[in-house]
């Protein structure tokens, strides 16, 4: 009986001292993208952030238009960290945050003020191609080709109705 009580106390102490699960670490991605945006040379920073548990990365690309001060940014999400040609789809339903759809969205913002929202055009040929992945150094590179169509935009800024990111070449590193 004494042993049972002692065991129960030790068991209780064990669970009482259990630390909460730490938040999964978020890998950051640093890199660059060069592409033709609506026919003009365009350079953007590449960022990323995704739970390691998902074994997938979200790739964010952004650049500030120095002429207008507006920030252009788009993301390609749910890409496995493995060499492959991934077809990217438009996303219509955002109510399910946990689906595995590989999708992309494009935004033009003035910091917190959304001025142009774009959805991927539903067409074949929207691709995100990881041509090189080094699982040791965590370096990667690839190409992309994406075309977006406007959902909503401010009327007076001369924003385009479609945005084509063509001949995109990117490279970067998953930092941790």
């Amino acid at each position, binding site marked *: 009986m004494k042993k049972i009580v002692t065991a129960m106390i030790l068991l209780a102490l064990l669970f009482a001292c259990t630390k909460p699960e730490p938040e999964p670490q*978020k890998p*950051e991605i640093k890199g660059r993208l060069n592409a033709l945006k609506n026919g003009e040379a365009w350079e953007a920073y590449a960022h990323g*952030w995704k739970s390691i548990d998902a074994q997938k990365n979200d790739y964010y690309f952004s650049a500030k238009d120095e002429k207008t001060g507006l920030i252009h*940014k788009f993301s390609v999400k749910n890409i496995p960290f493995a060499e492959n040609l991934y077809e990217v789809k438009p996303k219509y339903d955002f109510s399910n945050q946990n689906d595995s759809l590989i999708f992309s969205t494009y935004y033009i913002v*003035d910091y*917190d*003020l*959304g001025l142009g929202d774009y959805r991927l055009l539903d067409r074949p040929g929207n691709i995100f191609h990881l041509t090189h992945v080094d699982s040791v150094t965590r370096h990667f590179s690839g190409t992309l080709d994406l075309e977006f169509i406007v*959902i909503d935009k*401010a009327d007076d800024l001369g924003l385009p109705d479609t945005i084509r990111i063509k001949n995109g070449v990117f490279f970067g590193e998953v930092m941790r």
Partner: protein
Amino acid sequence: MTPTKKLKQHLYIVLITLLQLPLFSNLSGQSNALFTFPSPVSNSNLSASQLSRKNKFDSSFDVASSYLMSVQDIALVQESGRVAIALPGLQDTFRFRAAKFQYQDNGDYTWIGDIISPRTCLEDSTGYIEDDCISGFLLLMRQNGEYFGQFVIENDAYQIKNLGDGLSYLIKVNASTSPDNTCASASSNDTGSPIDPGPSGAAPSQDFCPARVLVLFTEGAEAEHPDILNIIDMSVAMTNQIFRQSKASDSDVSIVLVGKQKLLASEFTESEDIEDDRNSLPTNSAIAGYRNNANADLVIIMTKTIYSLNPNPEFAALGAVSGFGDTEADKETAFALVETATALAPGYVFTHEVGHLYGCRHGRKPEDCGSIGDNTGLPHSHGKVIVKNFWLLRIFLVETVMSVCIGNRIPYFSNPDVIYKAKKTGTEAHNNNARTIREAACRIANYLPLPSQPFVDLKAPQHPCAGEQGLIVASVEQVTAPLQFFWQTSINGINFYPSVPQPTSSNTLPVSFPGNPDLPLWVRVTVVGSNNETASNEILIYSDDCGGNNMKLNPGNKKFKDFAVYPNPAKGEINIAYSNTVGGDYSIDVFDVLGKLVYKTSNTDRTSPSEISRISVDAWRAGAYFVVLKDRTGTHTARINIVH
């Protein structure tokens, strides 16, 4: 009722009010300290519930310092609409004066006041504000006997949290830095406008157009902020306070909270991408259902702290809006996300996003963080970064609430007619959020139109001189004639007299403003129409100390130069002299004591800075008249007696 009886009745109301002064204003010299700090209380003295709440608050904010304390009932401690706050470790006692006091029969209330000492930043009739004044406001709410609120003294922001069982928790919140805070040191060629009046640009007054705001909150926000409902109430009240002190609205309420609703995780959960989240709002069927049920013009979603944690600099944010309200089409995208922890001071993110929904834009390059300049449809709609000259240096001071950075935000929308520490908070051409809000208000209030509601608006002379007589004028909408007006007055915002007001058909109330400029005067009117439609409203008036002669200039007058009516008493004709150094249109109306307009003139094509109007008064009955001058500095009233 004869006119004489009406006048007697009105003056009786005021007289009764003033006679009640010693009974209800607590002027007996008792302390009006709002907070008491008990002898040191350690965590071990707290109940489990109090400690849990305290820990939650500590983890929800960037805490600079904190204190356990008790909050006194403003209804008991206020003296002439004033309360005092003394903080541990600070020598100064800060006094606040009521600007709005919504008192309910059950003893709950919302009290909002401006700081008035040690050195007030409040504008008086001279329009001049010293640059070393202390700015700030206090917002205190009592609900079900519990207190919560916030106050700001200069750039220091404090949250008042309820721990339960009569104990409160005061948190001084560090001014958090936005993801792009490097602009806080931005210099500018714009040194901030001095207070010399600019060209006329006052926007026309608006109808009463409150936007109906629905505030939703996520499960994550509730878990992070157990007092999320209080934060929502405060966010709305604070936004209205900022509208008011920015002179963005003629009316004292511009947004009305029509609902607070938790979103289930299945309806909306924050992702790590604020852009995808805000983009999803217009097509979210659950949110659309809540919006339609509440008939809400604007929808704000309060979230947990998540977007600001995004390490990608261009994707980190504290809030976001889907559309900015410069066109009718924006009703489809009238949604905003706000991280709850930053909704209130010192970030004012809730108000910032509401500002966007009204069409306000950020500050301009190069003053602000690189927000876009004039290439928009609303070139005047930008926030303002205020700097000052110090020898050859241009020193960054503060920025209005629509600026990008949040490190040094002040609770003002930009407005060239509002002075902050001897600097204009805006310019006519580029930085006039107040105008943007005024012009957008009625359009936004009709995003989801409701049948017009009965409404009564009250207007009083601005900055009346102590002891002066004046008229309170009620304007009524959506109430069927014949109308009955029930007038009441109060000197504490709680007890109104007469307690059972008698009906009158007059939409004006002649009042004698308190002879002491320290005394407030609340005026309430209830209007009943022939179909029993009812509308009610209150106005709070303080008089200025005009040096004992309300027709003379204040020597420090920078704005309102001269306005005189003579001779007084007059017979045959009167002269109305007006020196219009501020420029712009003006009008002069003369009312008799019953509020009937007997004379009206206006000048919209001025060529001379000074004018004298000579008016024959032979046809006027003998008695008192009120001459009301309106120009871009406000409304000014003079009383004159006509004898025959």
